[in-house]
């Protein structure tokens, strides 16, 4: 049962990491345009000669 001493904090830390990731993505504006984000993922990166 001593294994709990490692496992429980580890589980909490991983969960906390997930939560931080979520809060970061929220703050980063990743939920502002859910529809567009889906399309951007599959859009081709064409070379842009004008730039």
């Amino acid at each position, binding site marked *: *049962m001593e294994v*709990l001493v490692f496992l429980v904090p580890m589980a909490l830390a991983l*969960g906390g990491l997930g939560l931080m990731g979520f809060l970061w993505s*929220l703050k980063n504006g990743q939920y502002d*345009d859910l529809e567009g984000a889906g399309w*951007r993922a599959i859009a081709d990166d064409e070379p842009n000669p004008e730039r």
Partner: protein
Amino acid sequence: MQATRDFSHYVRHLGSGLSHIDLAVEGVSCAGCMSKIERGLSALPDVTLARVNLTDRRVALEWKEGSLDPARFIDRLAELGYKAYPFEPIRAEAIETEQASFLLRCLGVAAFAAMNVMMLSIPVWSGNVTDMIPEQRDFFHWLSALIALPAVAYSGQPFFASAWRALRARRTNMDVPISIGIVLAVAMSVVETIHHAEHAYFDAALMLLAFLLAGRYLDQSMRRKTRAVAGNLAALKGETATKFVGTDEISVVPIAAVQPGDIVLLRPGERSAVDGSVTEGQSKIDQSLITGETLPVKAGPGTAVYAGTLNLSGALRVRVAAASEGTLLAEISRLLENAVQARSRYVQLADRASRLYAPVVHAAALLTMLGWVAYGATWHDAIVTAIAVLIITCPCALGLAIPAVQTVASGAMFRTGVLLNSGDAIERMAAVDRVVFDKTGTLTLPELDVTNAADVPQEVFELAGRLALASHHPVAAAVARAAGARTPLSGIEELAGQGVRGFVKGQEIRLGRPSFCGADKIANEILARDPEASVVAFRHGETRHVFAVRQRLRRDAADAITLLQKAGIEVEILSGDREPAVRHAAQSLGILEWRADVTPADKIARIEELKRQGAKVLMVGDGMNDAPALAAAHVSMSPVSATHLSQATADLVFLGDRLAPVVGAIGFSRKALGLMRQNLWLAAGYNLFAVPLAIAGLATPLVAAVAMSGSSLLVILNALRAHRGARGFG
């Protein structure tokens, strides 16, 4: 006088030498459009950011201050094939976005905590029946408390704040029993943990919070989306005024930038966007939108002009008396405020339920406690059981029952182009068994259309359309629109009251009155066949053609009427128009009951008569002169195309050129009402099942978690069915 377009009103200066503008863009619907627009705009020199938001259909642009005129972006987008217009984010929208992101943060925290606590609870539940030692159980309970306490304190804020506001105003709402339940569950669990007890309710409290927050977030994001689209709609109308910035220098500015005391120019064919009085010029004006009087009135210096007035003949200079409150943007904001108010009508309904609910539940808990004490249990056990009753009756399912259906149904209606203006509209719409249509602007499209386009050769039609672009006359505008003309001809002169003329490859072309083009004979033939039409003649060299222009029925009007009749809903027309026109429309749509030449007072009388006969009437009208009839009906609906919504009292508003949303709205409402009832029964059924368990002292945390999340899920899943309307409504 060449006007410059001045959009500086919309530009925000970000400091750091950058300017920012938001544009609403029409027709962005796919990834292709997105990259096309972003590339097209980034290619302009000095543009530092061009980003499309596909959800809101907007473009955010930033560029080096002073290097570019915002009008350039709009022209560039027009070249790419998109209509765009600057957008001024309204304050309310910013606040809602802020709230939405707060709710999402709360939801994230609650969901994270619920999952972790659940992970700790499962060993406890299984340990209670096997061989977990009490120290391990306590350890797990303390860990749960460590997670649950801060999580509840943070993510419970929306509920606690609302409950506190209600209590301070000496009212109660649904959030009061919710808050009491959550706080008690957590507090009791802490006390039990201190006393090394077997049961703690941290998991149930957190799961409840997560479910309720999810419901609230969805509800809010639906409202926000409606507001964004309605805002775009208003922005794209591009309501502008031509303002004098010098004695003879004019500039086209957005209405929002016009101040009282400014002088604006009102050209022939333009509708005034402001209230004011004429300072210079002579003209005839059409005040029909304001007074209902269709005969043109003479206007000269001193004549009062109102927003909505159509200038018919000469240019006028108008001194602005009041900056317009009647802009579409202002109207739509007001409409959405109503919708928000109306939504709180639902909350009111829930509040009324909670006024009944809270005393019953609290009395039941008290009786449980006294009962157990009388039965011989210790005070500690009796209090724990009583609190379990309070926790398990925490109105989660009840709190979700109506808002969840409302959210899904209004979302589905929104996708078909219907905006709700009042919250109980769904309930009232569901009861409708008779639909009364106004004809003009409702069954017909508000704009004029060419009816004999097929009789005219294509190239003649195109040339006439290009010539028509030079004229401000409404009939000419209809020809230009029908021909899809975009490029105006040069060197065209306009003869007031006659028409326009010019030269193409040495041949004279004319568009205007039949007498102006020497086409009286053809025109009379057309008028003999269709006395309701307006005619405009076109002459190219010696070839002459006459266009018949009239209001056309909405494309799917006949189908929509058939659907309604098939569904057992009676349909009739009440129109102020002349008899032949109404008869023609009724016959082509297969409507048997119609009345023509009806005054607004007669319309009300007819609706009252139908009401006395027990009919639930839906009045569909354009909201201008129909306002009293709309108000008199059981429920009402208006097309948003009605140029100014000033008097719109309609409960629902539909967008677009089709009538299908009207039929669809009835279908969605019927389905939604049925589901709301089902959900209330489900929530009641849950209480009937769970409360006796709790009173009997059998509501362990496991039972509470399963019963509460089960009932919430059931209610939410049932609400999702509102996504599709009742069968038979298209």
